[in-house]
């Protein structure tokens, strides 16, 4: 099992770091922009990044700041896929360590910027307009399956084996990703909004009548 799949409900972690900034160092914004160039030109997509985050040592996952993890993941991906070599990345890093103010090369692909902005507005809708026969209907009780551990999942660990009620059956079907290993998300399928009483998830919490909603791909549910 991977701790990253089971974050919800972990106790004794202490206070939340209420940092309201998006970037806390200038390099983080630069890295984020490089990432969007990769997204906008189909070098990678969210599932690739999530696979890397979920494959991390869980202690490192808690230890490192968000964009430090991204930096490690982006470099590993680009080297593994052959976009850059480890040697050239290391040499270039050393060069900028020696001279942090050295200018960037005054060259680039002038088409990329507009492609990235277009991508921000186009998005990447997982909706697929295909005919489906949803297995469950609104108001029905469902049990969340305990799927076998995999490289990448969209099933939160704390909801496994729990029983909830279908609140919404979304229209049509959605495709998560067919380019990374998942626990059954490589085919378009219905998605459901399921409602839980939080006391049905954790019996030891105060009875506050709170509820929790989560969206599930159909493969994660069975009739209860």
């Amino acid at each position, binding site marked *: 099992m991977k701790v990253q799949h089971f*974050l919800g409900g972990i106790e004794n*972690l202490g206070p939340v770091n209420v*940092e309201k900034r998006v970037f806390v160092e200038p390099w983080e914004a630069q890295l984020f922009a490089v990432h969007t160039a990769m997204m906008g030109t189909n070098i990678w997509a969210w599932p690739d990044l999530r696979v890397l985050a979920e494959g991390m040592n869980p202690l490192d996952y808690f230890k490192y700041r968000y964009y430090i993890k991204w930096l490690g993941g982006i470099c590993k991906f680009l080297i593994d896929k052959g976009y850059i070599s480890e040697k050239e990345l290391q040499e270039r890093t050393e060069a900028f360590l020696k001279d942090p103010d050295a200018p960037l090369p005054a060259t680039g692909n002038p088409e990329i910027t507009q492609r990235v902005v277009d991508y*921000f507005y186009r998005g990447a809708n997982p909706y697929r307009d295909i005919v489906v026969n949803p297995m469950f209907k609104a108001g029905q009780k469902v049990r969340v399956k305990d799927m076998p551990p995999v490289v990448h999942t969209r099933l939160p660990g704390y909801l496994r084996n729990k029983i909830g009620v279908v609140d919404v059956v979304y229209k049509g079907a959605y495709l998560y990703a067919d380019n990374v290993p998942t626990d059954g998300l490589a085919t378009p399928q219905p998605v459901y909004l399921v409602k839980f009483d939080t006391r049905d998830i954790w019996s030891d919490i105060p009875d506050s009548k*709170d509820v929790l909603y989560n969206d599930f791909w159909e493969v994660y549910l069975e009739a209860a």
Partner: protein
Amino acid sequence: MTKENHGDHEHHNHLRESETYYAARTKALESLFREKGLIGIDTVDRVIRFFEHDMGPFNGAKVVAKAWSDPAFKARLMADANAGIAELGLKDGIEGENLRVVENTATVHNVVCCTLCSCWPWPLLGLPPYWFKDPVFRARIVREPRAVLLDFGVTLPKEKKIEIWDSSAQVRYFVIPERPAGTENWSEEQLAKLVSTEAMQGLDLVKA
């Protein structure tokens, strides 16, 4: 290994975990991307400006102010959020292809999270701040939302019911906070200025 080499090794590891190192490595990435034609000279600046001026929490605040001022608009927005924001001339897009708006009331308080990663409604709020991505926030908000709200300086009345939205599939959630008392005659522009990013995910209350 000699003592000197060991010292170098320690120094190297320390260096590899410094902001200076991260900055140099990121600059190296952009530098290689430029040479390989994978990025434009102006891409980084344009992307940063985009999230400062085009896609940011000012969009969400505009939607909240309109929803507070126009009940018919609010009803349409809650029925179909993507169509609703289009009425205001706002574009949806990445991480907001399927938006849903929920509303805080006198009896219900909504909070949004993503326990698996950092899913967040970009077209309305721009990019997620650090707290939303903090593994501690993601671990605790689903089990002890009142204690987490206290970390944000928010105390909810005991009788208020909390509804938690964990974004694990295609939908990105957005919260209309409660309108503060004493703002009955305020313009939408004045109202929008009151609304924080945190309030639009349920981690802050709006005060006049």
